[in-house]
């Protein structure tokens, strides 16, 4: 009865000026999609007088906006925020996008006294009639087991009328009621629409998910079952307001909660005549909204509660909206300050890099294999005696050993590096040597000279920096 009364009150809506003192405010939507660019969150509010009539003469100064992190007592933490833009009731220049989401499950067909499916379509047509030639867009989607968009949001009414005519009872597999999943999908369908977006739902039943009820995997959602919270989160995130019309005996208590939490309304209709003009009333209500752009406070909380109060505190309304930061929530306590401890770590890395592989003066002369093939030592320090380089053959490693050592293998092609009486290092071989790509019998080595030994290159280092 109470719900019918509510319906009656809204049926009596018409535009009228009113006094602030006895007025009541309802927050019907929050749009924070462009906050990162504009720095503004748009709030949509409807003000009615004590007779339920729309109050359309208020100014920005008649409103106070406060926000705080959403939680158990956001009111205790709420701070007043600046209203930076204001659009009066009924003065919106851009169109509104409506998406009509119609239950097409099995229970909508074959009802005594006429199909509810036919009833829903008739009301949808009436709604399109009420849009007239306005800039408003309308879209149409059906749902049962699956969500189907019959027509995306558009201003062309003719194609919508045409598609509303297509109707047939679903096959048993398609007759389930994916109520919450379809609301998530409808949010997605409205995602790219600019401005104010409204979802109008007509359903006769409760959520009756395919996977849960049939035990079979859903053709699109597999084992996922959507809950009321999923639907609410999707709508809130997009700033979409839900107006839900439930027709019939079965009740889904979550539906009312979702509609009211998004700033919309819930209509529990028991008789066909109660439907008359309902969709038009929704439209009029949306057109009567004030738009308040406010600069939100920054808390880092994933969700923010925003409260709008009429001057004098006569009435207030609260809605939550997602407000996550791109880097996530701030750390707790002194964790942030602890992160400064990485600065010495950073400096240490840079210091190490500045010292890494720096040649130290006073190192002994040496030979180093540049691109080693196979195993063996990579570097050998040159001693006062001879050092023998045995080039590797057919992929074997080149070896570098002091003459007279156990591994000394002297044969044809062996290169001999030794220091002459003037203290200069030279290289020779009975088959000639190739240093810096030039062949000779022997040559005095200079720092950095490149010696060819079979397939390998060996670099001579005289130990000077």
């Amino acid at each position: 009865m109470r719900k019918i009364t509510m319906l009656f009150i809204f049926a009596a809506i018409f535009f009228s000026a009113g006094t602030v003192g006895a007025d009541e405010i309802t927050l019907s939507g929050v749009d924070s999609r462009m906050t990162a660019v504009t720095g503004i969150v748009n709030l949509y509010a409807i003000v009615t007088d004590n007779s339920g009539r729309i109050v359309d003469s208020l100014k920005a100064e008649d409103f106070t906006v406060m926000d705080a992190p959403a939680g158990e007592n956001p009111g205790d933490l709420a701070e007043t925020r600046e209203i930076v833009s204001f659009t009066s009731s009924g003065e919106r220049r851009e169109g509104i996008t409506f998406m009509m989401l119609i239950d097409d499950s099995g229970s909508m067909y074959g009802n005594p006294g006429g199909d509810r499916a036919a009833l829903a379509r008739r009301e949808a047509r009436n709604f399109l009639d009420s849009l007239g030639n306005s800039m408003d867009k309308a879209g149409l989607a059906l749902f049962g087991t699956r969500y189907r968009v019959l027509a995306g949001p558009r201003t062309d009414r003719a194609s919508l009328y045409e598609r509303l005519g297509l109707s047939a009872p679903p096959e048993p597999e398609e007759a389930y009621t994916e109520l919450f999943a379809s609301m998530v999908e409808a949010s997605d369908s409205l995602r790219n629409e600019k401005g104010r977006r409204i979802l109008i739902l007509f359903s006769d039943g409760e959520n009756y998910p395919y996977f849960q009820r049939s035990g079979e995997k859903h053709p699109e959602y597999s084992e996922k079952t959507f809950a009321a919270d999923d639907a609410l989160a999707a709508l809130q995130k997009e700033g979409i307001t839900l107006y839900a019309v439930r027709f019939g005996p079965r009740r889904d208590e979550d539906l009312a909660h979702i509609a009211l939490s998004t700033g919309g309304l819930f209509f529990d209709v028991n008789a066909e005549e109660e439907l008359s003009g309902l969709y038009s009333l929704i439209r009029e209500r949306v057109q009567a909204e004030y738009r308040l752009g406010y600069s939100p406070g920054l808390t880092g909380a994933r969700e923010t509660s925003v409260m709008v109060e009429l001057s004098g505190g006569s009435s207030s309304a609260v809605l939550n909206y997602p407000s996550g930061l791109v880097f996530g929530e701030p750390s707790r306590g002194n964790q942030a300050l602890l992160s400064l401890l990485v600065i010495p770590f950073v400096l240490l890395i840079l210091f190490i890099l500045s010292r890494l592989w720096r040649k130290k003066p006073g190192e002994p002369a040496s030979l180093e294999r540049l691109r080693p093939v196979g195993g063996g030592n990579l570097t050998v320090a040159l001693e006062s005696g001879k050092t023998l380089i045995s080039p590797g053959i057919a992929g074997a490693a080149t070896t570098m050993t002091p003459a007279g050592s156990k591994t000394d293998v002297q044969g044809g092609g062996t290169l001999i590096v030794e220091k002459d009486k003037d203290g200069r290092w030279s290289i020779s071989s009975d088959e000639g040597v190739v240093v810096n790509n030039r062949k000779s019998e022997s040559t005095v080595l200079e720092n950095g000279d490149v010696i060819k030994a079979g397939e390998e290159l060996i670099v001579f280092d005289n130990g000077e920096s």
Partner: protein
Amino acid sequence: MNESRSSLYSLLTGLAGGAAAWAGIEIILRFTPLFPDLRTLTLSLGAASGLLLGAIVPMAEGLRQQQKQKLISGILIGSVLGLVFGALGMAAGQLLLTVLVDTASTNLSAWARIPGWVILGTAVGSASGLRSRSLRRTAAGALGGFIGGLIGGVAAEYLSSITTGYYGRAAGMLLWGMAVAYLADRMESRRGRGRLTILNGELKGRSFPVNQKKLKISHAPSADLTIPGTDAATAMVKLKGGTVILEPGGQVELNGEKAETTELRYDDVIKVDGVTMIYEAKR
């Protein structure tokens, strides 16, 4: 210095840059309520993380060459690029987060940052090329930074999603920094026609890709490859069509003889005022 040693420089500067950027982000987030609006906060987060990453990652080249001037110019150019593109990248990420992603019911919010990581990675990756005024290097570095930003961003967000925000951000930033620095360096190297590896003196073992149209080798700090010493000797290595040309100026030897303008071949040994280097052509 072989390529793996060279890569260590980029990996470690990436690690240091990621760590510094993480600390910057944590400090800014700590003071979130002091910011006037979300736009300012987002731009500040992006600018700070970009500035720190951009300043540190391009230091790799200066450190490799032990060149103070290169170090400073790398820091300056990287800082400016990081600041601007970090701010833009994060603004894009925040916008995507608020426009496209459902923060309340899913973990997808983290993935909204990835375009931001990619934009910032591209900017940081291009810093060394811009410093050397080489379009070829800039493009290669930017591509490497783009891929690094994408891979690092995905890895970082995955880590963030399985840990708490604080530690997830830390792990993510370190990974991201390393991925961008390493891949930008690798891509610059891959785009080269070969490498010059120094065989003696202070820079012994350091290896530099021949990846720009004109690579100037001299003692001047402004040279692309600055070698120790004070002599006026200069060598220019140029990419012409599919060939690599050496143009000597002053006391330059090629394979033990006075060098003339000539095409470089695999394993040619070049000596510029006593500094010996070997050219290893890309095969």
